């Protein structure tokens, strides 16, 4: 029997009971719609986190000053004052796969400009810092190696600083006063938004690390070192190299703990994507339950339909329908119900996801693959839940079926 004729037959059978077909398909519509919308929400959250992680920079390895303890008192992270500029320069010089490093000193200071003041983060960095973080300037220029060598009183500032201290005029070329020292503003950074941790990355003034150490905080050790490796593949070997080098430079014996901590960007990415993946899977799983319930609805209706149409099955068999013809007829009806429901569900799911993203400002990512998977899955639900009733129909005895009242 030709598939075209079977399709037409199935369509007619479904149209015969419009209300029933609609309600049955509704189960699938809701199921598929829920899966699409939920996975969209999950993927949206994931893409947001990924964007935030990308704002860290490219192939970044962070080396933090570590824990330090003295007669039982432990300082906590960053307390060990053992990491020096020489360590940073040695990393840049000696470890293969390292493109560049930027020694980092962090500090908080009250700053003044324009008759306004603001408490902000002061970052002492090397000239390559912006390259490492993939951070560009909207205006002006970054300070140079020369500025670092000469402990120049120059800085670049983030968007938040402009909002707070220069609400109306162009800050480039102006002066901001940090600890009574005037720093000339060379450039303005593009806004980066919130970090993975939720802190404002634009609330920052970046100055040469030499200037920070000698003029502002008067300290001799670094908070951390930003290292850029050549590619994600060498990230592991770079991390091992840094660890070995620092242990050697800090003369740490076999039984001493590290006085530093190394974090690769990949680790950070993995942690956060694992969380969002879990969320996506969870949402998808909850939504799938409704899809399965929809499938059971199809099975239920198909069983009723087979019973109701026993005589029809008998007639078809009497005039020569094989078991497989009957099986195919009912299976196609079930698949048609589920896949039409699937298509409407996809439209509804995408629509409600769009609506949510507009209304609730939730990020939504609906990928083509999730739409295709949803459609294939809904058709599969039809096959799975339609098979038993269809097989039941195909196994009827024609004599009994013809006599069925």
């Amino acid at each position: 029997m030709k598939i075209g004729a079977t399709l037409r037959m199935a369509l007619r059978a479904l149209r015969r009971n419009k209300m029933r077909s609609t309600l049955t398909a509704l189960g699938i519509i809701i199921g598929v719609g829920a899966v699409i919308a939920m996975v969209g929400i999950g993927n949206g959250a994931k893409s947001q986190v990924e964007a935030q992680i990308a704002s860290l920079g490219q192939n970044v390895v962070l080396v933090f000053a570590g824990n330090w303890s003295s007669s039982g008192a432990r300082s906590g992270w960053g307390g060990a004052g053992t990491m020096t500029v020489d360590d940073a320069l040695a990393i840049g010089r000696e470890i293969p796969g390292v493109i560049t490093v930027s020694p980092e000193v962090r500090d908080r200071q009250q700053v003044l400009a324009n008759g306004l003041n603001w408490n902000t983060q002061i970052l002492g960095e090397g000239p390559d810092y912006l390259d490492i973080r993939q951070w560009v300037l909207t205006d002006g220029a970054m300070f140079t190696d020369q500025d670092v060598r000469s402990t120049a009183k120059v800085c670049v500032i983030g968007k938040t600083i402009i909002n707070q201290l220069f609400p109306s005029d162009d800050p480039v070329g102006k002066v901001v006063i940090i600890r009574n020292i005037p720093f000339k503003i060379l450039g303005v950074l593009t806004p980066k938004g919130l970090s993975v941790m939720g802190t404002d990355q634009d609330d920052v003034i970046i100055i040469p690390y030499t200037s920070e150490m000698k003029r502002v905080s008067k300290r001799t050790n670094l908070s951390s070192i930003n290292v850029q490796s050549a590619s994600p593949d060498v990230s592991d070997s770079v991390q091992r190299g840094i660890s070995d080098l620092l242990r050697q430079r800090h003369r740490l014996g076999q039984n001493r703990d590290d006085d530093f901590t190394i974090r690769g960007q990949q680790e950070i990415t993995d942690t956060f994507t694992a969380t969002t993946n879990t969320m996506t899977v969870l949402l998808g799983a909850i939504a799938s339950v409704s899809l399965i319930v929809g499938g059971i609805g199809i099975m239920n209706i198909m069983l009723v339909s087979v019973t109701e149409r026993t005589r029809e099955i008998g007639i078809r068999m009497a005039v020569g329908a094989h078991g497989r013809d009957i099986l195919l007829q009912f299976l196609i009806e079930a698949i048609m119900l589920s896949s039409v429901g699937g298509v409407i569900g996809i439209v509804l799911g995408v629509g409600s996801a769009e609506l949510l993203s507009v209304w609730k400002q939730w990020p939504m990512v609906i990928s083509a693959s999730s739409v295709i998977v949803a459609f294939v899955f809904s058709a599969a639900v039809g096959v799975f839940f339609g098979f038993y009733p269809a097989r039941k129909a195909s196994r009827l005895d024609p004599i009994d079926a013809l006599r069925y009242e």
Partner: protein
Amino acid sequence: MAAVIKLENVHKTYHTGEVDVLAVRGVSLEIASGEFVAIMGASGSGKSTMMNIIGCLDRPTEGRYFLDGTDVSHLDRDELAAIRNKKLGFVFQGFNLLSRTSALENVELPMLYTHDHVPAAQQRELAMHALQIVGIADRADHHPNQLSGGQQQRVAIARALVNSPAVLLADEPTGNLDTRTSVEVLGVFQKLNDEGITIVMVTHELDIAAFTKRNIIMRDGLVVNDTLVERRAVAEVELRNLQQAQQAVKLSA
């Protein structure tokens, strides 16, 4: 003439519960091409079982059945379905048309399941031709619920004819019809038989059997009587008689 249907010592036993039911207990029978046979008997005589076996809806538990020269007693479900499609046409007591489906499409139904696919246009043509033969071509677009019992049975006959079967099987074809319509339907059968179609009909009414050429009477699963009909009723004549009788009633009223 060659035997279209040939039964050799056919038995049918049903194993239901503890007691075996011997529905048919050794029937040997030959029906030649062009015959018009009535199988008669009271309920429980085994005539329905015989009909199911002849109609390839059921297989004999013992004995052999040749339909149109081939042994069909040991075929499986699918092979039997193919035989039914090609060699047999069924007419049932309850018409058994698909509801909410036009007469034409009902007649096309067997061709849907024919092994060698028939193009749609040709299907339509063949179905229309079959409807013309039974004289109901003008109702091709009507659904069964828009047709009278007699008309429905004509559609069913057209459906039975459409694949040019070797045998037309009718199971109490007039059971749901009034006398006049019954005679009309029998007229259709007689006309078809005159054109050479072999017909086997199950009935329990003697006056219906009188329209056939040969009567086989069954009792307790055996053939107890097999005779040729001597004074065959002719549908046209009977119909005229009925009309006259009706007119007489009207005149006297």
